[in-house]
């Protein structure tokens, strides 16, 4: 391309930025040089281009010189591009006909002692930008409508809070939970630290509001199986697993459960008790509609029984129910799939799973819970009596390079809470907490720590337990090195509680894959857009994360994050439209061979190969395109380019720098 033949008119403005640029770079020399380029309509400098005067001067010069594109040599596009784009807009030009050259951060500030060379470099940078802008096109942002509804995946406290917030703002919310009841891990807790609130007493009411909220459509015992589309316009398929109990008829009398003859391990009670084949996971379950577990139901296994069907006063039992796929449209998605305990049988030295009297923190919650397997009496599972001495080991799997490198953030406080439970239920018991440090950094945490520490019979051993060994009589011996007495200690107890590390829940992986979200290697937690500034947004527009799925969290943090995600959703839905970013990929159909490399590398599914007049060509959905250029970088036909950063524009810059 020869700029000498150019019919364009370029205006160039160079900012002194006080002495920041002008003190190093000889701007008058640059102006002299570029004035000789024929296509330059005007070349001006200004002491502070970003001042009101600077902007007004710029607008006037553009108007009087009839320039049709503008190069500004000043500072960072991050801070000043919107300002200068606005100036172009006011001068009647499309804002994307602006090229901002950063001769401050990239030149004057880093070459302060080499003025001549810095001037030469700045000149080259500006000339390269002049060459580049010759091919800039006017661009515009497209507005697309937003479906005023949201999908919340996960019915734990995070999902419940987010769903309620969005529903309260007047938008439809679809809340999907894979278990028969919402409530999540919080429903399993007996009490919450540090206030010792009864967990279900504060969660239960929220669960009931969710169930009856006019704007919330609840899908329990359901899973999200496909998600397509983009921000503002997702179409989602939900698989409703058959309950074999008709939700419209069941009145929740639970006679069926009482009469069911078949028993199996109770998942809600973490394997510590048994439930029936037809069951609700816990008394406060929402919805209060039983589910038949086909794996243990005598009818499904052997074709006999049907006791529940015979006895149901509402005729709600329906053995012929089938899976059902529901399709919904939403504008935004909140992922709140929560956490689960790390599989600590892999932490071999603590012998979990090898002796019955070793339980995890969540199992202890169930043992302590009034609606748990022992109805609130603390019974050691292998001894069938109350334990007298109990050891609690912290950081099991957590902060351990062999397992999970990170802190679970709740184990320390949970261990204190558990000691309190034990002392509350059995004042005579002795509790040993093995913790090499107690992290009590939250509101009221240190106070709670002090309170528990002062309870007689609670001993905190400041050390990591090295091993748990079983004894033939069912008791357990814990070995540790106690730095306080510089000696190895061995303590024999009746029950060991392991505060297990936390990982993202099992269901997270499939949601991650459906949405193409990023996840951490260890723990599988989803990655936020920015750890500091965008903690609930993700790399996929319109998809938000909250709660323990983005990293270990306690309840207050989870709830705060859920509300944050909800407010992001509300602001998106209430605005009603989205604006696409303008730098989308453009396909040159005369070059495109339809080979599909671009559509395969696009992480946002923005490119589809479409048949047009017998030929396959790539078509870009501008609403989905993020302008990352992965397709540009991979297209073997050089048929796809990013608007205003075309191959020949880069070529022109390269050539100009070398001139």
């Amino acid at each position: 391309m020869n700029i000498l033949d150019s019919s364009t008119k370029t205006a160039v403005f160079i900012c002194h930025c006080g002495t920041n640029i002008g003190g190093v770079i000889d701007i008058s020399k640059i102006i002299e040089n570029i004035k000789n380029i024929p296509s330059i309509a005007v070349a001006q400098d200004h002491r502070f281009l970003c001042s009101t005067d600077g902007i007004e001067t710029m607008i006037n010069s553009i108007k009087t010189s009839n320039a049709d594109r503008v190069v500004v040599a000043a500072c960072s596009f991050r801070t000043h591009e919107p300002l200068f784009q606005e100036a172009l807009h006011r001068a009647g030009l499309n804002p994307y006909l602006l090229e901002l050259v950063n001769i401050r951060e990239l030149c004057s500030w880093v070459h302060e002692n080499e003025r001549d060379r810095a001037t030469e470099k700045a000149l080259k940078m500006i000339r390269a930008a002049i060459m580049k802008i010759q091919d800039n096109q006017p661009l515009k942002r497209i507005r697309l409508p937003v479906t005023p509804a949201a999908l919340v995946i996960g019915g734990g406290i995070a999902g419940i809070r987010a769903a309620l917030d969005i529903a309260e703002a007047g938008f439809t919310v679809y809340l999907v939970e894979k278990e028969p009841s919402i409530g999540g891990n919080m429903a399993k807790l007996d009490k919450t630290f540090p206030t010792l609130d009864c967990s279900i007493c504060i969660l239960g009411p929220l669960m009931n509001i969710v169930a009856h909220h006019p704007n919330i459509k609840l899908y329990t015992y359901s899973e999200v199986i496909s998600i397509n589309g983009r921000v503002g316009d997702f179409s989602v398929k939900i698989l409703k697993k058959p309950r074999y109990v008709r939700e419209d008829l069941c009145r929740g009398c639970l006679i069926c459960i009482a009469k069911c003859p078949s028993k199996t391990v109770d998942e809600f009670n973490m394997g510590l008790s048994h439930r029936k084949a037809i069951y609700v996971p816990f008394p406060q379950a929402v919805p209060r509609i039983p589910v038949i577990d086909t794996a243990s139901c005598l009818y499904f296994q052997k074709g006999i029984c049907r006791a529940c069907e015979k006895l149901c006063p509402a005729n709600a039992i329906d053995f012929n129910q089938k899976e059902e796929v529901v399709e919904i449209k939403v504008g935004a998605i909140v992922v709140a799939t929560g956490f689960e305990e790390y599989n600590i049988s892999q932490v071999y030295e603590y012998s979990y799973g090898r002796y019955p009297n070793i339980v995890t923190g969540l199992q202890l919650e169930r043992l302590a819970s009034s609606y748990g397997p022992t109805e609130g009496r603390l019974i050691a599972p292998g001894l069938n009596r109350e334990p007298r001495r109990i050891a609690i080991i912290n950081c099991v799997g957590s902060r351990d390079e062999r397992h999970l490198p990170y802190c679970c953030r709740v184990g320390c406080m949970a261990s204190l809470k558990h000691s309190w439970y034990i002392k509350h239920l059995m004042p005579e018991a002795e509790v040993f907490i093995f913790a090499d440090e107690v992290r009590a950094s939250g509101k009221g945490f240190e106070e709670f720590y002090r309170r528990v520490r002062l309870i007689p019979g609670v001993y905190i051993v400041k050390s990591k337990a090295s091993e748990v060994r079983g004894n033939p009589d069912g008791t357990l011996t814990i070995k540790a090195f106690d730095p306080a007495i510089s000696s190895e200690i061995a303590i024999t107890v009746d029950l060991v509680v392991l505060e297990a590390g936390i990982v993202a829940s099992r269901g997270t992986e499939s949601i991650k894959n459906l949405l193409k979200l990023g996840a951490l290697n260890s723990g599988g937690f989803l990655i936020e857009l920015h750890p500091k500034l965008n903690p609930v947004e993700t790399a996929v527009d319109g998809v938000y994360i909250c709660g323990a799925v983005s990293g270990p969290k306690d309840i207050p943090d989870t709830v705060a994050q859920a509300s944050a995600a909800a407010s992001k959703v509300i602001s998106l839905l209430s605005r009603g439209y989205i604006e696409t970013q303008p730098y989308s990929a453009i396909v040159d159909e005369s070059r495109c061979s339809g080979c599909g490399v671009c559509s395969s590398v696009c992480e946002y599914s923005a490119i589809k190969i479409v048949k047009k007049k017998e030929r396959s060509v790539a078509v870009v959905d501008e609403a989905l395109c993020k302008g990352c250029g992965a397709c540009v970088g991979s297209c073997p036909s050089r048929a796809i380019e990013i608007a205003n950063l075309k191959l020949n524009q880069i070529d022109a810059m390269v050539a100009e720098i070398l001139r």
Partner: protein
Amino acid sequence: MRLAVFTGCFTLVKQIAVEASMLKVIQYFNIEPITPQKTNCCGFAFRSIAPNTSLYLTARILAYLNTFESEGILTLCNGCYLMLKETIYRLKENQRLLEIIRKHLKDEGIDIKSIPRIIHPIELFHDIIGIETLKNIANKKQYNISIATHYGCHALRPSTLPSFDNPLNPHKMENIAEALGFKTKDYPERLDCCGAVLLASKPELAMKLAYSKIAGTARWGFQLLITTCPYCFEMLDSRQEAVMQMFGEEPKLPVMLLAQLIGLQLGLNEKDLALNFNLSPIDRVLPQILKR
């Protein structure tokens, strides 16, 4: 199959039963043992004081055994096994050191030409001879004997080196015992140290460790303990009487080598298996095992 058998010092000077039983047993499985004469110490003793010397000593073994045609080196001692395994790992990592060592080896006219497979006895029985073969030997006989397994630390650790079994939860020795028709179970002291390494510097602690192991097996009701390592065998068998006396008890745990146990199943006679060298009360279980 031809295997070079590296006995190590301790087997030669103290626990000759380890070599005797192993050589007898593997011949039954059509493995031809080569017993080179001019080997040296594996260097384990220098491992912490002069690491490079110990690497050189092991490297010399590798180079020397290179001169024999074999499909691998069977090490009888856990210490030697670790040294050989670790040296291969270190030399692969550090080409410069390998070159230096090769230069010195040249003075003797030997060279590390190929890296042999290092085989632990447990690996030999479990993976090379195979569980199925062992099951055939046992011929569906079941014994009412509960066997405690003792792997020995260096068979499995450090866990960063490649290992023939899960270093934190091994099971191959249990598999072998079960294949032979014995009962076995996990017990807390299973992976504990036998104490042998501390024998020179802290004999009392060493004895205490051995005692805890022997006492542990008694508490969990085992009738027999098996191991493969001559050092562990020394602590748990030969010194059992001394260990128990220190704590005012009588020796009570029969201890056998894995090869001896398999040899008995094969019908080899007790002398051939050097069972007369076992100092632990093996008479308590021997009649039961011999009853066919």
